């Protein structure tokens, strides 16, 4: 084209123009701001509104937080130091730190015990949470419940040792019998453990607690955030196996077992946790043998455990239902019996699908442990509402305390949900 016109066109550029940078409005932060904050006028309005909201929140809280007083003996002393300036009185946290974490009746000189148990908890949980770690660490995880029990409650070391012995004997019996049949191994192990515990019960004398290495602490002295952590961890770890059993029962084709599981799950899911805590508080004691004196902590653990087990069962049932039918048939065609095909084929896949759901339930359950304050147990909310706000020194320090409790729960719950997302990505084996 240019060949035919070159002789009658005045000027033809023959060199290439050097590239120039895009205009500043089409690149870099300006473009980003234009695209993401002010794309349309409605969008711009939203941005301004959001900025104003952020300004409002920060301008009202930040000065209050930064003017905070960390050292004072009472609210009155705090106000004196502040001298009319609006500021937080974080001194309540420093002064009541131990009460918020351990409750107000835990022996003061024994705080190192729950603290140590808390630190060891991370060691025990590490191999469960991160399966790249050496598997030998799981031995410590297995020992941890007995160790933590001994550290927190104290008393004679014989009790946790006996419990451990029962579990070990039960496992050995299970290991022997499981080669014949899973059912025989399972029930045989349970019976053996109970036999050991029953016989061992006679060996521990009633006075063993008096001159024990660690001073015995009764359950009613537990409190603070420690109580929330203990309830949360104990109930979640107990309710997962129970939930699996309930889910399998609900999927079973034995009508009687299925019926029992359906009624149980639907009943528990239909009532609020607080009514179950009422049951633990005022009713459950009537159902134990006379004179057994099961303490409130155990009763609450029982009720919260069956509560979360019902929810976890529904999550796992979803996982079981999501598996293709071919997986069940594959198990059958390999000649595996029910227990084997569940253990080796179905459950590993179903549980993997269920992990996000189970974690959601666990987070919800941990938040729900604050409900025990309604039945006058002194967990962190109970401590704040009861002894701390009722004391003459700190009557009126609401926001600092609620903020502290909120931060504790937020850190734990947000951490768990982030871990669950990491785990989901890690376990994703399907290639989509």
């Amino acid at each position, binding site marked *: 084209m240019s060949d035919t016109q070159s002789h009658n066109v005045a000027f033809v550029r023959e060199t290439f123009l050097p590239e120039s940078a895009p205009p500043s409005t089409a690149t870099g932060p300006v473009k980003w701001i234009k695209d993401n904050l002010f794309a349309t006028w409605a969008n711009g309005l939203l941005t301004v509104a959001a900025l104003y909201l952020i300004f409002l929140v920060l301008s009202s809280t930040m000065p209050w937080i930064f003017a905070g007083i960390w050292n004072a003996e009472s609210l009155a002393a705090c106000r004196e130091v502040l001298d009319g300036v609006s500021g937080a009185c974080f001194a309540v946290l420093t002064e009541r730190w131990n009460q918020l974490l351990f409750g107000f009746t835990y022996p003061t000189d024994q705080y190192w015990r729950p603290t140590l148990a808390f630190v060891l908890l991370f060691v025990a949980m590490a191999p469960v949470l991160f399966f790249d770690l050496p598997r030998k660490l799981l031995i410590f995880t297995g020992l941890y419940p007995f160790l933590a029990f001994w550290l927190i409650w104290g008393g004679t070391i014989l009790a946790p040792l006996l419990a451990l012995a029962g579990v070990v004997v039960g496992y050995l019996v299970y290991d022997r019998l499981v080669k014949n049949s899973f059912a025989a191994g399972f029930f045989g192990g349970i019976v053996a453990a109970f036999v050991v515990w029953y016989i061992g019960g006679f060996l521990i004398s009633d006075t063993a607690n008096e001159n024990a290495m660690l001073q015995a602490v009764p359950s009613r002295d537990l409190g603070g955030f420690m109580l929330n952590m203990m309830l949360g961890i104990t109930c979640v770890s107990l309710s997962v196996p129970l939930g699996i059993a309930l889910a399998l029962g609900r999927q079973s084709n034995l009508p009687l077992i299925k019926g029992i599981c359906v009624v149980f799950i639907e009943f528990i899911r*239909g009532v609020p946790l607080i009514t179950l805590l009422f049951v633990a508080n005022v009713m459950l004691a009537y*159902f134990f043998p006379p004179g057994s004196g099961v303490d409130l902590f155990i009763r609450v653990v029982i009720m919260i455990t069956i509560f979360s087990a019902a929810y976890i069962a529904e999550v796992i049932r979803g996982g079981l239902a999501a598996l293709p039918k071919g997986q069940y048939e594959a198990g059958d065609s390999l000649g595996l019996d029910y227990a084997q095909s569940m253990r080796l084929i179905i459950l590993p896949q179903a549980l993997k699908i269920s992990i996000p759901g189970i974690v959601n339930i666990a987070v919800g359950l941990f938040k729900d442990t604050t409900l025990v304050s309604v039945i006058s147990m002194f967990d962190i909310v109970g401590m704040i509402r009861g002894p701390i706000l009722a004391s003459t020194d700190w009557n*009126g320090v609401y926001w600092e305390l609620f903020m502290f409790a909120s931060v504790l729960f937020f850190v734990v*719950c947000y951490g768990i949900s982030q871990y669950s997302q990491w785990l989901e990505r890690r376990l994703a084996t399907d290639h989509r």
Partner: protein
Amino acid sequence: MTTLTDPPKQGSFQPMMLLNDTRYRSITFQVIALILLILAIWFLGSNLATNLAAAGLNISYDFLGNPAGYDINQTLIPYTSQSTNLQAAFVGILNTLLVAFLACITATVFGVLAGVLRLSKNWLVSKVMSVYVEIFRNIPVLIWILIIFTIMTASMPTAKSYLGETPDNGLIAGLFAFTNRGVNAPAPIWGEGSMVVVAVFIASIIGIFAYRKYAKKLLFDTGRLLPTGWPTLAILILPTLIAFFVMGQPIGLDAPDPLANRFNLRGGIQIGAPLIAIWFALSIYTGAFIAENVRAGIQAVSKGQTEAAAALGLRPGRIMNLVVLPQALRVIIPPLISQYLNITKNSSLAILVGYADITATLGGITLNQTGRAIECVLLLMLFYLVISLTISAFMNVYNNRMKLKER
């Protein structure tokens, strides 16, 4: 469960076949389960009987007919301290349903707003909304209830500051007063002929549906598209307004009056601080969960659907209404209903701030005054169970109707 059937063995029945033969094994297990169940029930029942006998108690529901002997500050039906425990329980039931109903509506509004805004292309807005969702989801609802109750009771002005000729605080819009006891709001006064206005209003709502149905029919039959936006608004407002003035303005507002009384605000209705606390806390807490459901539902509609609708020439509003929402609702509604169920169950936490719901009346004061722990807790559970099962039943009906009709 294995589907293999062993070939029938020749010869007689052996006891081990009960465990090893698939024909008998399932029956064996069920019999064992039945025996265990009966043993457990018998064990618990006999313990209960022994313990009750030892404590000199019996199971009886007579206390429901006795006078309750306590006052309830917020009631929907007439109630005095001389009313029976059963009436107190009914007051509680109505209060539970009231707060659950209110919280369901506001939680849905918050949730849908936050969920849609979280998907906004505006970076700042979507970040603000995800902060909202994360903060509210990860802190116990119990703490939220306490925080909002404290805001209501500790940082609101006293009722007295609204009173007098020159009050410290003016009524908001001349109608509302936020005090540390709750919110005083105007109440409607139903005068002579107000029923006519209400009837006209209901009739015009029916009229809107009829008009929309007619417009749709006309569109499908002839292809003519009638406007629906402004006629809907007109039908909704105009007839009612005309009726209102024709009847001589029968409906009035009874606003709180700062001059009526020297000690407290009179006039209008007072919504107590406990109700506000539990209502608002449940709304923002559950709203955060609903926001996640809404977001997941909208994201579940594949992008191709939106693009296909755009390729057909639909406007963005139509794409949302006709293509995305019907598919997203299928995903959103079931978890939404279970959130409603959660609201109803969490409203039992009202006992913490002294709102007289069923847990606070029947499970709280009545239980403590009569000592009938077992009966009260059982009745309480029965109530919540009935509510839950009813809502689940509705949900199942809905799910079956909305199920994708596949070939």
